[in-house]
């Protein structure tokens, strides 16, 4: 396992006037795209990097112009208003549910870049003059581009439609979840899953119990090892697929199994699937007559995972350095949620 040295940029937030297009929309009206910008947007989109907008502009006029230019579909949760860009940037991170340190912000005005950097020092700020070089920055060069990454924009668009449906829903959360007809699959990782598995270990921070990242080669070795289970989880529903969204690595000892890695994409946080994968492990260990332990490394962002373990019946039984060892009490066994179809493949 290795530490991540370069923070991966997951989303680029664009200014519009004199950044995406030449001119000021409300003054000039007939603005034209700046040369090369759309190519950069498409190149990054194909790598699975998302795009959004932080522009001080008239919302309807700017959206109409983006439609006319044929590029509106690239931008998720555009923030077009008269407020501070730092607020808009934060709003993008919250709407997509990714860490603010995974954003880049492009603007032609030094004042705006400074304002964003002052509020969020982790955001990578880029001068509009340097846009052509964006695809070459290491932060914007993911090691692998998987089927899931190429589809990422569409996956997030489906999420936006789900959120709209959720906002319009009256009733309990569980009733809403039931209306989605979710189908969750748990299967041993195949060779074709390994790039996505590595991508998940690198990209996932909030729902990640240990933060260990493993290379493709290490994951491939675990996949073949008789002493390990490497499981990949997928989810789909009425609105389409979420892709491969979960990963678990279990080391199988003779009288205890240890969960080395348990992570879930933050896109599925509100679906309760972290507990589903964990319950599958609890039940499998119980059926095999072994104890189930789990390693946990607390960070400022993965408290949800700790709560998931504790509420599933785990207790802390040991600690070495940063790593807490949790152990399931063998008593709290929970089935699967009624609002989800679960398929476990061998």
């Amino acid at each position: 396992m290795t530490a991540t040295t370069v923070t991966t940029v997951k989303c680029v937030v664009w200014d519009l006037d004199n950044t995406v297009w030449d001119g000021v929309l409300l003054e000039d009206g007939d603005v034209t795209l700046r040369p090369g910008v759309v190519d950069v947007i498409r190149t990054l989109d194909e790598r699975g990097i998302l795009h959004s907008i932080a522009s001080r502009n008239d919302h309807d006029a700017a959206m109409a112009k983006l439609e006319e230019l044929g590029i509106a579909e690239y931008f998720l949760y555009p923030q077009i208003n008269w407020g501070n860009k730092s607020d808009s940037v934060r709003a993008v991170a919250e709407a997509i549910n990714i860490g603010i340190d995974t954003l880049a912000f492009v603007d032609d005005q030094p004042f705006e870049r400074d304002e964003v950097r002052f509020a969020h020092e982790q955001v990578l700020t880029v001068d509009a003059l340097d846009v052509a070089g964006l695809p070459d920055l290491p932060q914007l060069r993911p090691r692998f581009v998987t089927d899931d990454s190429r589809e990422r924009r569409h996956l997030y668009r489906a999420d936006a439609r789900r959120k709209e449906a959720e906002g319009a829903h009256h009733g309990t959360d569980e009733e809403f979840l039931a209306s989605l007809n979710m189908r969750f699959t748990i299967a041993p990782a195949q060779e074709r899953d390994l790039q996505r598995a590595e991508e998940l270990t690198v990209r996932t921070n909030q729902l990640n119990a240990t933060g260990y990242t493993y290379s493709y080669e290490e994951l491939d070795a675990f996949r073949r090892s008789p002493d390990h289970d490497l499981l990949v989880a997928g989810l789909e529903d009425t609105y389409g697929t979420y892709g491969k969204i979960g990963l678990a690595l279990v080391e199988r000892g003779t009288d205890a199994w240890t969960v080395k890695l348990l992570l879930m994409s933050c896109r599925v946080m509100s679906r309760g699937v972290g507990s589903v994968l964990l319950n599958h492990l609890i039940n499998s260990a119980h059926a095999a007559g072994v104890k189930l332990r789990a390693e946990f490394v607390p960070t400022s962002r993965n408290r949800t995972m700790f709560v998931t373990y504790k509420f599933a019946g785990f207790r802390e039984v040991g600690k070495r350095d940063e790593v807490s060892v949790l152990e399931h009490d063998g008593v709290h066994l929970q089935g699967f949620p009624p609002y989800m179809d679960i398929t476990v493949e061998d």
Partner: protein
Amino acid sequence: MSTDTRARIAQYLSRFFPVQDLKDDDDIFELGFVSSMFAMQLVSFVEHEFAITIENEDLELEHFRSIKALDAFVTRKLSVPAAG
């Protein structure tokens, strides 16, 4: 005071559980599937609603199991000054 705490907790839980009258000692972990999301939302709700900080060692199922247990937990946390 305590009645008020229980009412606020019951009001919150009614968003998740389709039951008309949640009794003070009903085990919410037996009423439905407890997802990681619900667990985290409940923890955040208790922290914000009652302005307390829940430490890792407080995260025991027993404290969150029922309205009664939550009430006792909140009351105890509020009576102890936060450790410096």
